[in-house]
């Protein structure tokens, strides 16, 4: 999953660097505050551990072998923030010194495997492990699921980064300038390998390590003490996680042909071809002959500023779709931040 140079456009590389940068900054601040002078040696050795774990050739059930990316392990044992740093350092050394992953793609690789993967893995682990005992079998299952889901989330992010390239970057003759496969090919091609071998390797490694630690070093599985400096946005982390998932998933909508069931417009109901599709999607129940009066009336009242998710000034529907998702996500983030600020103010008033 290490993206080489040349697969992503320079603007995508810049964007992924920009997306990863706040996580690097927050992670370094958080780790520095918690570890003080221990931060540098601990991060260095743990990063080296992450690097070595990536080299382990894991015998999988069924006779094949695979490599873990270590993101599940790092997220569970270190917590997501320290995992961001240690995995990023390991990925940077892999790219610069060993040529595994491109120099321009360091931002994208870190975003996928050192930010999205560990955060998703950590969220799944916390959700499934709950408050169970450190030595419970539930934690082993939770670790396996965390590794599997985290790995596949990272792979999905990489697939989307690949898949948007031909939508956005082609020359005048229609030649894709970077990764040439659209989302409809990139996502299945990437996910087949990761839903099977790579995901399984990550699941087996994460679950296996947790089981071994339960037996030999259970104290390493105790959750890290909550930071006393948790920032307000971190307190709404579940919303962030949900939003991140939605942002990641939004271009998948490009794969779906036609209109979502029930989202028909007055024009659709008047168009004979669209009427056939509506009937086929509705168990052969035909829609009313005339456009319902209420729909006709309401449809003219509100014209969304971004109709059909594609701004009118953008001719390219796919580009508009992606832009719309980003604008929508930005608005939601602003909403969350406003709610978060309000909560803090109310809490301050109560105290």
């Amino acid at each position, binding site marked *: 999953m290490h993206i*080489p*140079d*040349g*697969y992503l456009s320079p603007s995508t590389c810049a964007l992924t660097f920009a997306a990863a940068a706040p996580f690097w900054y927050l992670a*370094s601040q958080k780790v*520095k505050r918690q570890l003080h*002078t*221990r*931060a*540098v*040696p601990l*991060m*260095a*050795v*743990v*990063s*080296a*551990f992450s*690097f*070595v*774990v990536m*080299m*382990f*050739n*894991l*015998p*999988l*059930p069924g*006779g094949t072998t695979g*490599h873990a990316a270590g993101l599940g*392990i790092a997220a569970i044992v270190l917590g997501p923030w320290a995992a961001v*740093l240690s995995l990023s*350092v*390991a990925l*940077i*050394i892999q790219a*610069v*010194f*060993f*040529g595994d992953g*491109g*120099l*321009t793609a360091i931002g994208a690789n870190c975003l996928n495997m050192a930010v999205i993967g560990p955060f998703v893995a950590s969220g799944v682990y916390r959700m499934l492990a709950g408050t169970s005992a450190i030595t419970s079998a539930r934690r082993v299952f939770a670790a396996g699921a965390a590794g599997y889901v985290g790995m596949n989330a990272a792979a999905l992010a990489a697939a989307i980064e690949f898949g948007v390239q031909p939508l956005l970057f082609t*020359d005048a*003759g*229609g*030649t*894709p*300038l*970077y990764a*040439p*496969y659209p989302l409809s090919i990139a996502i299945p091609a990437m996910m087949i390998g990761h839903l099977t071998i790579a995901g399984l390797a990550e699941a*087996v*490694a994460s679950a*296996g*390590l947790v089981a*071994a*630690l339960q037996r*030999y070093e259970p104290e*390493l599985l105790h959750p890290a003490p909550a930071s006393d400096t948790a920032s307000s946005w971190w307190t709404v982390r579940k919303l962030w996680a949900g939003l991140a998932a939605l942002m990641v998933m939004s271009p998948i909508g490009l794969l779906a042909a036609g209109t979502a069931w029930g989202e028909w417009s007055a024009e659709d109901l008047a168009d004979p071809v669209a009427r056939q599709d509506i009937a086929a999607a509705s168990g052969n129940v035909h829609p009313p002959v005339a456009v319902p009066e209420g729909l006709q009336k309401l449809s003219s009242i509100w014209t969304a500023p971004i109709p059909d998710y594609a701004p009118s000034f953008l001719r390219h529907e796919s580009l508009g779709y992606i832009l719309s998702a980003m604008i929508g996500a930005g608005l939601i983030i602003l909403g969350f931040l406003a709610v978060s600020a309000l909560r803090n103010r109310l809490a301050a008033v109560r105290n």
Partner: protein
Amino acid sequence: MGFLHGLDGVERHAREAEDASASAGFLQGLDPRIKLAGLLALVIAASLTRSLLTLALLFSAAVVLALVSGISPRRLARQAWLAVLLFTGALAIPALFLVPGDELARLPLLGWTVSSQGLRSAAFLLGRAETSATLAVLLVLTTPWPHVLKALSSLGVPVAIVAVLGMTYRYIFVLIRIAGEISEARRSRIMSRMNGKARRHLLFTTMAVLLGKSLALAQDIHLAMVARGFRGEVRLLHDFQTRPRDWTFLSAALLVPGLILGLRL
């Protein structure tokens, strides 16, 4: 040691890079900061170009830089070209048939059509990946790792990150050795071949022990650093000096992406 995939390769790669960077050559003689910035500019240029001819020229320039630095095409093929060809080549081949466009040829028997757009997109993908990998290998083969790190800090990467990168590189080899010793100790105490399940269990135990040892090692290193006066601030010594040829190389390297952007090459 069988489960540690590529262990020999990592150590050999590091040793070869150290030897190559110590030998005389054009890139070896440049200031590491200038070299890092210049080679990065060329990697970005390879990513920016929209012309296959420009990409071919960049690739040729990378090979010329290797030759004048005493790095043979054979070594480049072994350390960069072959791996990229196998991975990216396999990934690019389907693009010949899957990218829609003007029909260029038709495969006999199968009847699949090769589009000119597909051929060009595969050439772009492979060309960019090969050129960038060549330039990245040149950096590593002509610059000792501590110099790469100092150059990173000169280019604005925070010194704490540079210190972590340097120490990580050092301890990768320490941990690889420890993992190897754990494996060897276990294997020397068994009489028969292990099946998949037993090997998995061995691996999990090794990982758990390695993690415990890593954390203990980090604690020892921390105490040793504190004993030597470490107070949480990292300082790096800079003893690089630039010469006119460094600036000539940097100007030429920066000119390439500039020309590509300006002239839309």
